[in-house]
């Protein structure tokens, strides 16, 4: 599904990613962990197409297409979804109107007929249950005045509506209490299938107790320095990131 080869990216003149290699197949869950400033969120943003990050070297293939050639909206239409660490507040645009526009543009791209108001509402009600979100919240301006938990649930709600092939969750656990974390994780797990994949970007092991990964990668100084199974996450939790840094220094 996703093949990242030797990816380098910089912001302004500062290199942040220094040769990422990662392959994600359908049905897999990958966790990307690492200390602050290691490049985790940059990787997520570069994959989603944020323009401040300039890719200087390397390739990213998504279902055989060159992902780096595509505009952010084209990536989304091809099935990529980024759940934002800090979802943006947009006054005057309701989640419902926004989602209807987005879903119908994505559907048109897939060659499906746009949903009418009735069909859209039906789908929306179904997906709302998944993340225990109230319709009153979705009638309001997008994320404006939402609590941290509401914003993250709204991200997963949008993900459920758009049914992406690859979902990237950027620090979705940050700012969540344990109940919200459970709801969000439950939503993500329900959406998992053999035909889609998830990349979970996180600083802590906590989220991985709920969303169990098949692979764990440690990002440090813009490179994946260690990969393993979910046991690696537990080891990190116990020993901290200094253990990785020390290992690199002596190597």
């Amino acid at each position, binding site marked *: 599904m996703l093949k990242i080869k030797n990816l380098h990216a910089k912001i302004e003149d500062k290199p942040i990613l220094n040769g990422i290699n990662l392959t994600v197949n359908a049905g897999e869950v990958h966790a990307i962990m690492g200390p602050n400033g290691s490049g985790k969120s940059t990787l997520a943003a570069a994959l*989603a*197409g*944020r*323009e401040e990050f300039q890719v200087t070297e390397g390739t990213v293939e998504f279902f055989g297409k060159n992902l780096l050639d595509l*505009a*952010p*909206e084209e*990536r*989304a*239409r091809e099935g990529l*979804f*980024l759940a*934002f660490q800090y*979802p*943006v507040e*947009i*006054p*005057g*645009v309701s989640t419902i109107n*926004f*989602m209807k*526009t*987005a*879903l119908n*543009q*994505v559907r048109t*791209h897939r060659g499906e007929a746009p949903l009418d108001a009735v069909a859209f509402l039906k789908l929306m009600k179904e997906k709302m249950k998944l993340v225990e979100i109230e319709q009153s919240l979705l009638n309001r*301006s997008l994320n404006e005045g939402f609590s941290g938990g509401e914003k993250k649930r709204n991200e997963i709600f*949008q993900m459920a509506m*758009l049914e992406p092939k690859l979902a990237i969750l950027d620090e979705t656990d940050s700012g969540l209490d344990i109940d919200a974390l459970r709801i969000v994780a439950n939503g993500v797990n329900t959406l998992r299938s053999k035909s889609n994949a998830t990349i979970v970007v996180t600083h802590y092991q906590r989220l991985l107790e709920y969303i169990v990964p098949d692979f764990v990668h440690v990002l440090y100084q813009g490179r994946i320095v260690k990969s393993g199974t979910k046991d690696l996450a537990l080891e990190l939790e116990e020993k901290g990131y200094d253990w990785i840094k020390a290992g690199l220094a002596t190597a």
Partner: protein
Amino acid sequence: METVTDKKNLLASLQEAFVQRGLHEHVRRRKAMELLSGKGLPTIKSEEYRFTPVTRALEGKVNLSQLHSVSQVTGTIELIPELPCNRIVFVNGVHAPEASSILDMNLSVTLKESEESSADHDPFDLLNQAFAAQVVHLQIGENVALQHPVAFVYYFDSPSFVFANPRWKFTTGPGCKLAVLEYTIARTEGYFNNKRSHIEVGENTDLSFVMIQQGGKEEILVNNARVDLAKSSQVSCYTCTLEGRMIRNNLTLVLNGEGIDAHLHGAYLVSGNNLVDNHTVVDHRKPNSHSNELYKGVMSDQAKAVFNGKIFVRPDAQKTNAFQSNRNILLSDTSTIHTKPQLEIWADDVKCSHGCTTGQLDEEALFYLRSRGIEKDAARGMLLTAFASETLEGMKDETLRSFILDQILKKLHPTNPS
């Protein structure tokens, strides 16, 4: 014979035409012309017009000796077909009773030759006073709730440049409820609409005043609009500027009583080489009233916009609450906004605040929408429409609101048909 005004000599040409048309024989017109001659037409050195060269835009254009042959309406005068209105139609600036129609029987319409002027008037107001064919005076009595909005329609149709001076006055009794609407139908490109209106709002009356400005690419408009409010009245003004070469709004609200609730909302979407200038005055003369002003603009290309918001709180007007906000988005490096709040407060127990912001489109928000599959232009359109449409909040007439919203969307995102 045709005398097109010479450059630099607009006032002299106006004075000449004034006499030629025999208007000087009327004492009030003559007085207005004398006041105007004393003041002169504004230049860019005049403080109130320093960003908005209306006089220069008119020089060489105004054809004064020719009275317009067209006085009939031949096209549609409807802007919003699903909104039936009482209609007062001006054809090339002159009231056209045969094109007008009244649906509410308790609305009276009379014509007056002129009305009294005062020395502190805007020069274009004086010009209107001198040249207006008549004053259309509308009245409603006590406790009248008009079923239909009263629409003032400025209809232009002429083979040559039109110099129009429509003038109307609306007086309401106490306890009324009404909506007043203004729009333009232009079947000619070049015209100067030098409009003057005055609404006297009775006690406990609820007025909604909506000005839709979409008069075509070559429109030059000076809109002198004054609203006088009596105690416990409520007013919401909406000035929605969608198109026009040069538009100057002088909107003045005089709060002449206690317990008044006044809202002024404006949206201006300016593109190309066009200029939109909103000068507003909110004059608190009595205690315990509230005013709230929100103007928002989106400028692109080489467009210019001006906002000048004066709030006066007179010595008597204790316990006044007055708020003002002007927010702007510049979409290009070559677009400009001049914004100036001007608060003059003589009372000591008041709450007043003002603020203005100017920025660009929020790139974070744009990326967020695009990351969900929404095409870039559509995402921009959504964000800008959301920004501008905040000014329509509280507009009670849903048909009117959705019409204006649709016009805003079309202007800000021309490729989206919905």
